[in-house]
């Protein structure tokens, strides 16, 4: 039979001899033992010390009574335990992450299912109720007879989340370990979805999630978050961890984050980062954020314009470039000056021995780093660009601006 957590609260428990032991005040899950089994019931009666009934001491459960298969003497005295998840205190009314629906929801009630195993009954947590039926039950249980409540809720549209898709949020790292809460399920989400979820949480909860993600995912999520939140999170992180995350971000994104931090904090973080990455970011920090230099990414793929298509593809295979950087390749002439760009699609369709100079996009456009962001937008619009090269005074390429950076700037305006 299906039971609900709300129905179980306050139910009377009787021992094997039929003596009244107490009422259910709370029940627990011990995630280290079984992720969804109700492991302990807290029974209290008046001024007596509260007792604990273990899952193998339960003979039957209903919304009217709990029958134990042992005598009262066999029950232990209740001791608070950090590694137990308290259903009422830790779950009911709290926020959880629905990893399949990709959103933050509030728990109204919990659905439990009975499972018989040699001589006793175990309760398993099957799903979390986040909709109207749970709300109605919370409001009316104990005021109106159970039957009426059940009848009423069956007419309401259900809204539940299977327990497997629930990710708990626990800001305290020690407790998180004890409760075996991981954020592995969150790492499978798209960083943009995870960023949306994080915006719905409180500061300490955001902090705990970022701290427990791997650096690559954390970097991707920070890149998608609202700039103000990113600053808050990075400021509160352990500097070493923060530097590790920044290192994983593209230099332009890392520079954007650091530019919003107080001077001392950003210096401290740059010190923690490896020299080469730190220098790249430092250079970017010198530029006005609203100019081409402040938008550009200094990591880009460049080749000589006299190379053939096959030579280039061969080199790309061996080098460690991200796919975003390879979308468009920058060409250099024999004086190491900017000669144009070749989109990957053109290279894909070209003959193996074709020279890159023959494949480049016309017209050849570039910008100095001081150029205003408005000029950048106009060039992208005019030539339908996917990428724009930024050059220094000697016409040497120093960075590229990708179309996705342009889109996010335009959205923010």
């Amino acid at each position, binding site marked *: 039979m299906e039971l609900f957590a709300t129905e179980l609260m306050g139910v009377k428990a009787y021992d094997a001899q039929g003596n009244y032991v107490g009422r259910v005040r709370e029940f627990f899950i011990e995630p280290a033992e079984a992720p969804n089994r109700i492991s302990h019931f807290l029974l209290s009666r008046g001024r007596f010390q509260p007792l604990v009934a273990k899952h193998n001491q339960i003979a039957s459960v209903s919304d009217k009574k709990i029958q134990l298969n042992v005598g009262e003497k066999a029950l232990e005295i209740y001791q608070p335990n950090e590694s137990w998840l308290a259903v009422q205190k830790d779950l*009911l*009314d*709290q*926020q959880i992450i629905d990893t399949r629906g990709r959103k933050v*929801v*509030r*728990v*109204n009630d919990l659905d439990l299912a009975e499972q018989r195993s040699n001589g006793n009954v175990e309760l398993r947590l099957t799903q979390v109720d*986040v909709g109207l039926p749970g*709300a109605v039950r*919370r*409001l009316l249980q104990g005021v109106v007879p159970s039957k009426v409540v059940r009848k009423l809720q069956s007419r309401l549209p259900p809204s539940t989340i299977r327990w497997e898709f629930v990710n708990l949020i626990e800001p305290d790292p020690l407790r998180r370990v004890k409760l075996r809460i991981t954020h592995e399920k969150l790492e499978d989400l798209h960083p943009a979805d995870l960023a949306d979820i994080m*915006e719905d*949480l*409180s*500061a*300490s*909860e*955001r902090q705990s999630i970022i701290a427990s993600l791997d650096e690559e995912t954390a970097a991707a999520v920070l890149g998608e978050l*609202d700039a*103000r*939140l990113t600053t*808050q999170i990075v*400021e509160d992180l352990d500097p070493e961890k923060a530097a590790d995350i920044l290192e994983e971000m593209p230099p332009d994104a890392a520079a954007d984050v650091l530019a919003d931090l107080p001077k001392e904090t950003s210096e401290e973080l740059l010190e923690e980062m490896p020299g080469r990455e730190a220098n790249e970011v430092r250079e970017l920090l010198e530029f006005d954020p609203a100019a081409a230099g402040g938008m550009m990414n200094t990591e880009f793929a460049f080749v000589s314009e006299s190379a053939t298509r096959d030579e280039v593809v061969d080199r790309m295979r061996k080098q460690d470039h991200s796919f975003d950087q390879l979308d468009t390749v920058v060409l250099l002439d024999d004086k190491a000056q900017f000669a144009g760009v070749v989109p990957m699609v053109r290279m894909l369709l070209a003959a193996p021995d074709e020279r890159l100079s023959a494949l480049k996009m016309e017209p050849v456009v570039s910008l100095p780093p001081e150029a205003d962001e408005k000029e950048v937008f106009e060039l992208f619009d005019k030539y339908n660009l996917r990428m724009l090269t930024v050059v220094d005074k000697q016409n040497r390429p120093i960075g590229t601006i990708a179309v996705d950076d342009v889109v996010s700037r335009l959205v923010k305006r």
Partner: protein
Amino acid sequence: MDWSILKTGVESLQNRGAGLQKRLRSLRRRLVLLLAVIGPGLITSNVDNDAGGITVYTQAGAQYGYTLLWALIPMTIALYVTEEMCARMGVVTGKGLSDLIREEFGFRPTFFVMITGFFVDLANVVAEFAGVAAAMQIFHVSKYVAVPLAAILVWILVIQGTYRQVEVIFLFACVLYSSYVFSAVLAKPDWLIAAKYTVIPNIRFDLGYLITLTGLVGTTIAPWQFFYLQAGFVEKKVGPRQYPQARADVMFGSVSCMVIVFFIIVCCAATLWVSGQRDISDAGQAAQSLIPLAGKWAGGLFAFGLLNASLFAASILPLSTAHVVCEGLGFEAGLDHKFTEAPIFYWLYTVLIVVGAGVVLLPHAPLWKILIFSQVGNGIWLPVVVIFILLLVNRRDLMGEYVNTMTYNIVAWVTAIAMIVLTLILTYTAFLQQTPPPAA
């Protein structure tokens, strides 16, 4: 000629220029930081001066002249103390007040707080649209035109605008409250007496005086504003680091709110009270009576202030209420959801506006009773909410080092108890007032 000297000269100039630019940038950044936080406190406190509030201030000025002005300073403190606690909770926990009540006190208390809140706010919304009707009457516009137009305007503003845009419009509306300042200046009051009565308390023990005093406090400190204020800071993602700016915002809001109240009371005292027109039933009537006494401009500005205040509150109240109720009960809320994703939110919002505006349009609508109901409702709702706030803000597991200090707690509890006693008196007397005052 040695060119290198010129070159180093130019370079040092360039460096100095760059240094200056950097310093300017840091100044600009600090200003941006402050501006980024400011808003919720200022808006919330100013919305307090809504149609119901202005009616009470008008009555206070018309009936008792300058003698009630002393109450404004303690009221400013009370307003600041209570609002600051909510701002602090929002900034530190990153959660709304209804979220916190739900998480810490469970479903049933939350449900009753929310349901009471919904009906009290509905009555308040009716009062706002009644304010729109009264103000537009001064400009000779029928309420059957003005109220539906106002409802549509409010609906468009909120549905079409983003949070930032709406906030800018609201901040602009705060500036428009200054029309009361001009209106008061045009009324040529005795500033010296006004200043004297503001500083020196003048407590009288006649029943009417006490009732008006209670009304003054009751309309200024309304429970819904705590929810709106805290949600505002949460929505703006203000963190503990920006708490000083948030506090400044709340402080500025409370003071500016009371400054406006001061000018409204002074304006009415200098005209209506001096000329003996002491029985004023609503703010529209006050504006009407101002015209022969202080000129067309004073009356017009007064009515414009009322219109602004009513529209302002009518835009905020339904939205804030729908938000708070849905968040507390765990339903999807917010304008960034589609109707099918958050049906309960949109239904609540629509009901608040349509019923709110609709009641005003009914011929022989019992507006007076609704106003009393909203006051009684506030009176019942306020103690509950304030006690929840005080319990929450003292929880170390939630607030960490930001819990109330001992002295702050004493001030806060004294304020809370005083407010509760006053609003209970107000509720009691509102029950007794069965007959409406002389009609306009």
